[in-house]
């Protein structure tokens, strides 16, 4: 019998004790939407997801942090503009910049928050076509040495959902040149540029490689049948990457 297109088969095996010992925080702001999805991705990768609340003043001993997507504060004023001032964000910024180099992943609204918080350069403005766009998007992994991308091959193409209204990445030419020169463009859009982002940039990393932000949603491509039609689990590598990093693999 040909394989029935079943969904719900989780491709990761049973988590090892070492993996599930890794505590990955998932931040919820008012208006965050993809927090439960990010927590599921963490779990399916084998780690323990820890809920973090924007108003908290400490990081609850997490080993890494995901700032998930959504419309925190409704995206009012500017996407990420109000969230950036949350008490927890100060802790995250400090920990990311500390010697411990806390791994931080910002997805979509999380990426916008990271740029507003100046952990990552540049900013996002409205998509060039001005509409919200939800599509399965092909990305090329340009830098596979960061805390969140080391499970991928350099140049690997992955498909993950993209869904946003303010996804056009912009920065001045000097910053863009520096990002390119330092290999800090982590992902580029392939096939089509869905929002007019400068130089097809979909995601970037900080110089140390512990802070990564991107507009598309890897946490929506972690289970067969609940993600993009043909591949479905290309996003899981983000979450296994950080486990490699935490367990000293890379």
């Amino acid at each position, binding site marked *: *019998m*040909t394989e029935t297109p*079943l969904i719900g088969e989780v491709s990761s095996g049973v988590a090892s004790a070492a993996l599930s010992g890794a505590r990955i925080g998932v931040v919820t702001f008012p208006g965050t*939407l993809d927090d439960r999805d990010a927590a599921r991705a963490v779990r399916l990768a084998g780690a323990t997801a820890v809920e973090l609340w924007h108003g908290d003043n400490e990081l609850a001993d997490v080993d890494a942090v995901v700032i998930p997507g959504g419309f925190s504060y409704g995206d009012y004023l500017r996407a990420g503009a109000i969230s950036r001032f949350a008490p927890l964000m100060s802790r995250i910024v400090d920990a990311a910049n500390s010697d411990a180099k806390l791994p931080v992943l910002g997805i979509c609204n999380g990426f916008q928050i990271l740029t507003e918080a100046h952990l990552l350069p540049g900013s996002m403005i409205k998509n060039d076509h001005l509409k*919200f766009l*939800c599509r399965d998007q092909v990305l090329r992994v340009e830098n596979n040495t960061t805390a969140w991308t080391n499970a991928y091959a350099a140049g690997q193409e992955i498909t993950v959902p993209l869904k946003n209204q303010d996804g056009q990445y912009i920065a001045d030419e000097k910053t863009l040149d520096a990002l390119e020169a330092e290999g800090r463009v982590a992902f580029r859009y392939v096939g089509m540029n869905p929002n007019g982002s400068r130089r097809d940039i979909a995601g970037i990393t900080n110089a140390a490689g512990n802070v990564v932000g991107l507009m598309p949603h890897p946490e929506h491509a972690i289970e067969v049948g609940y*993600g993009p039609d043909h591949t479905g689990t290309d996003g899981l590598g983000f979450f296994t990457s950080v486990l490699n990093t935490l367990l000293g693999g890379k």
Partner: protein
Amino acid sequence: MSEISTGSTTEAAESAKKFNIDTVENAAKTPDVELPWAELGLKQNEFDDVVKVLGRRPTGAELAMYSVMWSEHCSYKSSKNHLRQFGSKVTEEMKKDMLVGIGENAGVTNLGDGWAVTFKIESHNSPSFVEPYQGAATGIGGIVRDIISMGARPVAVMDPLRFGAIDHPDTARVMHGAVAGIGGYGNSLGLPNIGGEMVFDAVYQGNPLVNALAVGVMRHEDIRLANASGKGNKVVLFGARTGGDGIGGASVLASESFDDTKPSKRPAVQVGDPFAEKVLIECCLELFKGSLVEGIQDLGAAGISCATSELASNGDGGMQVELTSVLLRDPTLTPGEILMSESQERMMAVVTPENIAAFEAVMEKWAVEYSWLGEVTDTGRLIITWEGEVIVDVDPRTVAHDGPVYDRPYARPQWQDALQADTFTGSVQDGGRPASAEDIKAAVLELIASPNMCSKDWITNQYDRYVGGNTALAFPDDAGVVRVDEETGLGVALATDANGRYTFLDPFHGAQLALAEAYRNVATSGAVPMAVSDCLNFGSPEDPDVMWQLAESIRGLSDACMELGIPVTGGNVSLYNQTGTTPIHPSPVVAVLGKLDDVARRTPSGWKEDGQAIYLLGTTADELDGSEWANLRGHLGGLPPKVVLSAERALGEILINASRDGMVDAAHDLSEGGLAAALVESSLRYNTGARIALDEVAARDGVDAFTLLFSESQARAIVAVPRSEEIRFTDMCTARNFPAARIGVVDAASGSLDLQGQFSVPLDELREAHEATLPKYFG
């Protein structure tokens, strides 16, 4: 948070001085005061009834309450007598899984394993014409609050839409706004959009239909009802502040105010705040989790009037509320206006005194404003005070439930017979029916590029279908499927359908056809249909022709639900959809909810495995009246396709069994656009071609190739069957005596749809035709 309450109380107290409060005492003493009941939409007999019920003239505030609660929208006065059939035509079997039936904010259906699901569809038609973005956005907001108020976590939305002619200059305005509004609001709530409809027809030019469906899930123990019980329990209003939204008519309550410098500016439309609603959802779920509320009610149409009177009359029957405690966005609002305001993103709840602190802690956490308005009593009266003075003293039942009910006259329109006699076959428009391969190919391309049959990507790409991580199927598949339980894979499927042309030709059968199609869509995905919600969009009930359409549709729909064994658990009636005296086509939008024990088994609508056999289930007759093809030729007349509910049921069982036992990898039902549309859609779904031979089935059914491709005969579907399953599958069909014809095979290498003996079209050409239409008109 207390500082806010105090702040506003002072504000309210100050503004109170500006009002000439019409107290109950005053009303009793001044029976002859002129009241603007007509301006508020009441009829003489209705006003007389209010006076009779109260035994005196109403106060201004009471008049405000009765006028909104006795409006068509809130009281269903024209449709109530007919709607009863949804409750009466039900067997014990149908009641088995119904945990909450019609009458509550939304019905609740048992899914098993302790899970329950609630869903409902509603209209937001006229606001969406005036201001499409905000009208559609607040439509989503309103239906989602209905779902929350049942104790459920909302998990998905859908949006059946009907707009005017695609090339009319005003259509782009409505289309752009409504789609952006639905996306803007729904996407911000984190609710995947999993399906809907899109129909263009000039009859909707001045009355677009923007219907919205929401579905939510909960554990059985979390079901909440809108009732206020327990004397001494506190009544609280939380969420957004109350502004002058949607109170147009109420400003005529001049008797409430003696200050004519009072700014009478009231918003013409309501603006939604999706962020506030998202926070409200999380906040309510936290309240439910902690069992912190005894009863809860969303505030929709008729706002506080509705919430207080319904909570009170469904509970122990008494409530006492101090209206100056309501937090206001606009301090100039009069008591009547506050009672009528339809400001969005508000909820009312009943909380025991022991839970007050815990309730307040949840509000603080989410930074939601709230104010305590009063308490539940056992007096059987709803008493509303303004600075302690009684301005409302009513039996809440008389407001909420004992509104007027009309037996409006109705009669089969005089023109109905002539309309039905005017069949497409043989009409002028049917001249030169395509017969050659070349002409049929052109017809197929025309069909799939046509406004109603073209790809809806332009719309659906603006909707988040992934959020939540539980969407197993969404557009362009036949039904949306959402996983409910991550452990077991238990899930639900939903589809909405309506065909205004069919219903115009024959309201009784048209409504049944809407149900049949939604049922078929759900079964095609592999789910077992369980429950129905409907949104009845019609013209004016005061027109006997329209009233007949409404009566016939309800009769047809309720009969068909009985025959299919699935109950109506809730819905909505939207009347007066007409421009001048021209009503829209009667448009009963029917939503069917089904259940999948394991969503991993759901069936998508496209094939992708090379070599699988393609079967056509069901038979085809010459049924082109009311079809998309006739519509494209500019013809509307005759009788819609025949409904055979037993065949729908048999087909459904085959599709459900085949899905459960892994006998089909793809299934797509045949509906508007018939076999031609289905073949193209199933090929384009995963960009996988097929070779199809039509001659044998055409001969079997005694129709020509064109009719086989374009007729809209019901109870049909196409499926892709793995070779290894063919015998088992055909045996099943034979055993059930259901026609199944092998019409072709999936051909992955070809990259085209090949109708043998007719023509072959590359998939790229089909896609181009299918996908170019909406971008061409809407950018």
